[in-house]
């Protein structure tokens, strides 16, 4: 947990990241930056999905619609915060010459997306019959 708090402090203190280790090849930093942006786009897509569920599924019953929309929005928030955290961790690992951090997050996110997709199929099918 203290590691996490230290990472959060690094989010806001650019000069502190540079205290450690040496500057990596700029191409690695840029690749890390692009990965961060790709995760941010994933987060934005989840947020957009939340809007879309709310706007384009008017036949869905209200609790389902709001629940799914809020779940997607929460996933988007989680995804964007994790994007920064992972970017900081990767940047530090590169400066120190360590292995890049392993992460369970991609698996988690894909499982959540799969569950939501299955739920949507069930809801749409049930809505069709009802």
């Amino acid at each position, binding site marked *: 947990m203290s590691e996490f708090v230290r990472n959060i402090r*690094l*989010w*806001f*203190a*650019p000069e502190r*990241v540079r205290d450690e280790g040496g*500057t990596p090849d*700029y*191409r690695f*930093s*840029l*690749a890390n*930056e*692009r990965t*961060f*942006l*790709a995760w*941010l*786009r994933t*987060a*934005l*897509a989840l*947020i*957009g999905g*939340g*809007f*879309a569920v*709310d*706007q384009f599924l008017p036949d869905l019953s*209200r609790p389902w*619609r*709001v629940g799914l*929309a*809020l779940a997607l*929005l*929460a996933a*988007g*928030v989680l995804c*964007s*915060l994790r*994007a*920064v955290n992972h*970017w*900081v961790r990767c*940047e530090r690992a590169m400066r120190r010459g360590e292995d890049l951090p392993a992460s369970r997050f991609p698996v988690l996110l894909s499982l959540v997306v799969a569950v939501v997709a299955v739920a949507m199929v069930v809801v749409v099918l049930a809505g069709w019959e009802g």
Partner: protein
Amino acid sequence: MTSRRGRTGRDPGLQPERTRLAWRRTTLSGAVVAVLGVRTALHGGASALGITLCALCCGLWLGFLTAAHHRIRALSATTPPPPLAPRRATTAALYAVATATCAAVLVLRAARPA
């Protein structure tokens, strides 16, 4: 820009260009989300809260656009380009978080019976 690159040596992997385009793509994704937000905010008549949230969505997107633009200019200014400042990364992510919060308010507002 090409001539400046030519003097200092071009990166054969086009890393700064790819990173610039990644920022552009992300800004575009943000624009799509902002448009969806505006649609949701103004759906079924414009209330005071709806207009406020609509303006907030647009403002957040403009904020992200500004941050992306600064980074894009920094990327094309020098070779090799400076690394991304953590503060800017955090700002970009917080724009996404703020948009999601705005969206949650919009969704909950729409869910309430009129």
